[in-house]
């Protein structure tokens, strides 16, 4: 075994975590207090430096801490501030000076200041690096103009991470710069974007002459793409942090429905459900294997496939549920934009079916994910691209 982590092993991390949940029992103290203590103890991101929510411990020990939290009835930490934990924290810790980083990370960790991500645009989805929102120098800062889309939590967020084009005369990846922006800044307008579920869990964000101080630039001018990419890996590997129980996750909905509706059982549906269960189990065990590889310091190709397989499985599961429901599948009890986040109620499965159509689109479409697996894991050549090496302003759009 490696020895560099000998001072902080799983036992020590678990012990620290237990101290926190004992002193601040989940459910009995406010979430902010619990998560604040969690942050102060260095358990928010154990691999971060001491004083910035971490312990300088191996990243692989994070699940140990999270498990203690879960067993004590606390939240999965990232659900407190999904984008904050998922991509922002890693960017801040890499690119922001320690004191400012601590000032930003603590309320991020407690959920007091939610974060959103101003990356995607109507004209830049899969081809994110082609984005057109402009940031132009203005005194000690920048003026930003453009439109962002698919921004979850924009209406609730205190802060955003922003990718904007600072140089249109160079190839697309080289002309981007990364900023953090307060969502209360004048010129930012958030409009809810309604989805097929009727809900508006995403937003469009319009940026009109928004002033951003240069102190809120992360990384060098023109280095935005690389700053953004430095945390994309965090997002993917974080998917492997949890060991799921057998028959949990989306497949649980299908199994539950199967048990509840014996009168609708047919051999064909039984066959389909058995094969879905096999897919779920293949996925679960592969995630577990990826987790063990990562813990042992050899992240393998397993982690890259988890998102893709899981998203396609989710769709198949809810397609199955509709077929098992029969005539009831035609009903949806609400298309209210304010319908709650946790899908429940008499037509929960129908609504989950609708929601599942996004799983193969969000966080990289399945087509892009297959490109990623083909090019980054299997090292297949990139396809010929019409924009390669061209200044951004000459690319057709």
């Amino acid at each position, binding site marked *: 075994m490696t020895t560099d982590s000998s001072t902080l*092993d*799983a*036992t020590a991390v*678990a012990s620290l975590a237990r101290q926190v949940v004992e002193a601040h029992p989940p459910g009995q103290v406010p979430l902010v207090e619990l998560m604040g203590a969690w942050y102060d103890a260095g358990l928010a991101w154990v691999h971060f430096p001491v004083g910035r929510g971490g312990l300088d411990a191996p990243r*692989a*020990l994070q*699940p*140990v801490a999270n*498990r203690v939290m879960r067993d004590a009835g606390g939240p999965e930490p990232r659900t407190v501030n999904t984008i904050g934990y998922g991509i922002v924290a890693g960017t801040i810790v890499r690119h922001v000076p320690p004191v400012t980083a601590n000032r930003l990370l603590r309320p991020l960790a407690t959920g007091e200041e939610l974060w959103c991500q101003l990356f995607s645009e109507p004209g830049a989805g899969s081809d994110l690096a082609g984005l057109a929102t402009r940031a132009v120098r203005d005194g000690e800062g920048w003026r930003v103009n453009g439109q962002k889309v698919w921004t979850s939590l924009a209406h609730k967020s205190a802060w955003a991470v922003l990718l904007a084009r600072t140089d249109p005369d160079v190839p697309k990846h080289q002309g981007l710069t990364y900023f953090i922006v307060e969502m209360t800044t004048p010129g930012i307008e958030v409009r809810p974007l309604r989805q097929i579920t009727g809900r508006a869990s995403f937003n469009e964000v319009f940026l009109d002459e928004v002033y951003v101080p240069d102190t809120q630039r992360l990384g060098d001018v023109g280095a935005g793409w690389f700053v953004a990419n430095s945390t994309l890996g965090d997002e993917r590997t974080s998917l492997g942090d949890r*060991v799921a129980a057998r*028959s949990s996750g989306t497949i649980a909905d299908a*199994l539950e429905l*199967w048990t509840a509706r014996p009168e609708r059982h047919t051999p064909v549906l*039984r*066959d389909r*459900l*058995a*094969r879905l*269960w*096999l897919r779920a*189990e*293949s*996925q679960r*065990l*592969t995630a*577990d*294997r990826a*987790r*063990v*590889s990562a*813990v*042992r310091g050899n992240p*393998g*190709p*397993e982690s890259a*496939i988890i998102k*893709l*397989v899981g998203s396609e499985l989710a769709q198949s599961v809810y397609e199955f549920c509709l077929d098992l429901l029969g005539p009831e599948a035609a009903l949806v009890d609400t298309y209210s934009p304010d319908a709650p986040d946790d899908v429940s109620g008499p037509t929960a499965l129908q609504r989950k079916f609708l929601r599942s159509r996004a799983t193969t689109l969000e966080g990289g479409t399945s*087509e892009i*994910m*297959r*490109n990623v*697996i*083909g*090019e980054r*894991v*299997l*090292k*297949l*050549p*990139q*396809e*010929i691209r019409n924009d390669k090496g061209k200044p951004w302003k000459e690319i057709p759009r």
Partner: protein
Amino acid sequence: MSEGVGQEFAFDEDLLELRRMVREFCQEVSPEDVVRTTMETESGWDPVLWKRLGSELGVLGLAVPESLGGDGVGLVASAIVLEELGAALVCGPVVGTLALALPALSVLPDHETAGELMADAVVGERVLTLVAPLAGGTFDADALSVSATSSGSAGAGWTLHGVADHVPDGAIADTLLVVARTSDGAALFLVDAAAMGLTATPLTTMDLTRRQARLELDDVPARLLADELATPGICEHAAQVGAVLLAAAQVGGAQAMLDRTVEHARTRLQFGQAIGAFQAVKHKCADMLMAVEQARSLAYHGAWALQDGTDDPALAAALARAVVSETYFRVSATAMQLHGGSGFTWELPIHLHLKRAVSDGIALGSSEDAVERVARLVLDA
């Protein structure tokens, strides 16, 4: 065991070293041209190569308990060996001896006899096979086609009569473990391949690297190995271990097909570029990778489950069987597709894997049989 580290999938340095060793051995001793030469011989195997695997490398008895003269390293180690043998398409009694007979003998109540038989088998000096009704993937007493008759005084001697078809490695086995019907059920018998009244007819197999025989037993003298109480459990255990080991071999073959196809997609130029740049090809390669990685998880979950008791062995074995066979076949078929016309030639090794995928996918029951078992265990329970 520290928190956060799963009990399964922890491939330690010894296991990684074992893999490297077996892989190097296969590359050196059983490269593709040797496989082709061997598979075209009448018997379809090379006893010298098998003995080297057993004595020089010492990898045939890794899962055999130490108390029975094996190495007692465990089933995971054995699965790694099978995976590498599968990748290299090594010819020999992999199914008969490694996947079926040794697992059966490992749980034989008569330790002394088991130890004697396995001592020769693990060094490659004795080929064993199991003749049992496992065609559906589980022990099926109703499918017994051999019957046993007790001759003379109690326990003194038995004779076997009947026909057993599709016996893996049946024509090259020195010793046969035969399950036969008695008046009280099914019992396990030991039969010498040279015994009077035994005829082993080699069958012409699609997969020339996995041989089968038809056995005709005409009052063949046999020795009782396990009684009616123990035999079904022995057979079930052999079927489960066999399923997992075969799955590991299939994963090896599938990985070999994936590697070869990716290499082809990187180097084959059409329309002025490597064909792997086209999404039609690239995405199929990505799908192959996803299938192989998931199959690997199931095969090794099975190995760990049966080795350490981390899961219901019947379910773990059925899981592996239900998915991995299909994966090996689909990946081989896609490999052929992505190689274009050359993939259909005798010269390229893809047909060897496609045929192996068929034969390994039938041995010990089809995917559908296994899906049905999973459905019973998970949905009907």
